[in-house]
């Protein structure tokens, strides 16, 4: 999937959370589950702390998609982490629309500390969607 082709894979920036989703992404690597080398991760303490402006900055700077690997219901810090992360996603999407950037370039999903399969699946699907967006 990630072997070099004529058309490079869309660059995806993933914001993960140190205690929950980042170990899940680690697990995908530990299991040698392949995903595109165009996927790069920046870990944060919690997905509720992602600033919408970072999403905008990443897409304006050159990433083609941003994926927030949220803590979801497993968050050890905030019982309403999912709601908070959803709220900042909406805020970021509003900012993207203002800049005429497709809000489809931003995705979020809860990812647990053993959700390796899910992560790889999400990356594959998201890249497919981004390729369709590029083709339009």
């Amino acid at each position, binding site marked *: *999937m*990630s*072997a*070099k082709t004529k058309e490079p894979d869309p*660059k995806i*920036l993933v914001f993960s959370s140190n*205690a929950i989703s*980042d*170990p899940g*992404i*680690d*697990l*995908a*690597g*530990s299991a*040698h*589950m*392949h*995903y*595109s*080398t*165009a996927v*790069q*991760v*920046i*870990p*944060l*303490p*919690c997905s*509720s*702390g*992602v*600033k*919408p*402006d*970072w999403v905008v*900055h*990443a897409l304006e*700077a*050159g*990433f083609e998609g941003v994926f927030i690997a949220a803590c979801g*219901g*497993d*968050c*050890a*810090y*905030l*019982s309403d*982490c999912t709601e*908070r992360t959803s709220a*900042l996603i909406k*805020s970021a999407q509003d900012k993207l629309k203002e800049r005429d950037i497709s809000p489809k370039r931003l995705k979020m999903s809860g990812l647990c*500390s053993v959700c390796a399969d899910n992560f790889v699946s999400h990356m594959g699907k998201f890249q497919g969607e981004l390729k369709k967006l590029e083709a339009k």
Partner: protein
Amino acid sequence: MALKRRIGVFVCHCGGNISDHVDVEKVVAGVEGEPGVAVARTHMFTCSDSSQQEMIDQIVDEKLDGLVVASCSPKLHMFTFRGMSERAGLNPYQYVHVNLREQCSWAHTDDKGGATEKGIHLVRAGIAKCALTRPLHALRVETQPRALVVGAGIAGMRAALALADMGLAVFLVEREPEAGGWALQAGKMGPEAQHGPDVAARLGSRIAAHDNIMLYTGAELIEKSGSIGDFNVKVRVSDEDVVDLNVGAIVVATGFDTYQPREGEYGWGLDGVVDLKTFRQMMADGKLEHGGKALRDVVFLYCVGSRQSKSEACPAPNTYCSRYCCTAGTFAATTLHALEETLDQTVNQYHLYRDIRTYGHLEMVYEQARREGALFVRWDPENPPVVEQGDDRLCVKTVDTLAGSDTLEIGADLVVLVTGMRPRENDQLNSVLKIPESKDGFYNEIHIKLRPVETVIDGVFIAGASQGPKTLAESVASSLAAVAKAGGLLMKGYVDLEPLIAKIDTDKCTWCDACLKACPYGAIEKTVCGDKEVALVIASMCKGEGGCVPVCPHDAIDIEGFRDDQIRAMIDASLKEAVV
């Protein structure tokens, strides 16, 4: 700013785990010209003693003020390299870890060129972050050599004794009038046939005789202030007195509640339908009869209140397995069999189960029950058993999924519902301690495998079934794990708190109180700075999760280590073209 820094970059081969799939020499070549990089080189194993010493020498000789190590996941060696940095005289928070193994080489074993290019991007991002680090210092807090244990069931009593044996003063608070918890009502408990009230009494005697333990019964925790190492708590005793206590750590062992079936659920409410607790008491009383008639046929129905699916009748299902019920039900089978022999009475036992989860050596209890004649019938959750009132006794209809599709009709003098565990209702305590709960309603640990008894409230630990369904043995093991963490904290005498917490830009802050509302930990206060009101972060209360960051309308909050300028710099550095 970056040009003034002197950063050392060390890329690990990890024996081949990294360098087999990432050309680490090309990574070094791709980053050595980055602004601020003074040294860049590879090591076969950066975590080895010899490599660490070489890195320490280079930090000293080259007068490095920043360090990037690109190796395995930070979950493995972040603290190793923080320690190394300290030994080299470098502030440990000016070291940045890059995950080049789990999130690069191992995930891209099929594309060495792509993985190498990605590796360059990852390390550049680490360098960009490192260039913006500043020295941070852990907040050192002295710990008081006293502990509070909430809940005097078996897990709580065991925790209190273990902490007291370490020489710590322990305050043990129990809401009920008597210590002992569910064990007081358990009768004989599997698998060793210990008598619950006797176990509780033995522990109670030791507690009463221990100089270091003060037990408060009929008592509730009503207030908590302070932070790790130095909590001030108020305990209301017998609805009258309020006791002020000062403790360094809190262990919460509040246990569980048993599931209460809904009216009509598996015949609940019909004469002769009882729960396991009632049946255990019947056996403890030594009488196998109901309504004046000797028992001939008893049906045990498992998974009542556990592993539920959402339905109209059950809008908030308990989806978890309660773990102890299969052992408790099969142990009741063996206890009943022994009593039959004592009373010279024959009772036919039918155990209707979904899956028998008598794991580990508990399987022997199940085997014994089968050997002694108990019949086990498996049912399908799509077609659960139905309990009805027959002409003269109860009738249970079920389909044995292992024997065909015919419906069995079992006449029963007694139906025993083997009910599961529920989270304890502790509204008062929850409002005081603010421990996050899982979606199941039990207290949530930080990490189920890596930090299984710690909560996000520093200094507050969870033990036993307050955290989730457990057998008694598992509860005690968890309780002693909490003791190890709490005891270790208090015996050391101090604790260093991570400085990676929120920081307010007082120039931007206008005290709109959005951060105050966003923080569930009470870590934000209003203060005066110059001639205006601004937010103040209470360092010992802040968890550093960053929930306050995106809600600030003035962009006035950063989390140290994850500051706005650092994240933007990482994004930019990740996108610079890398030639492989």
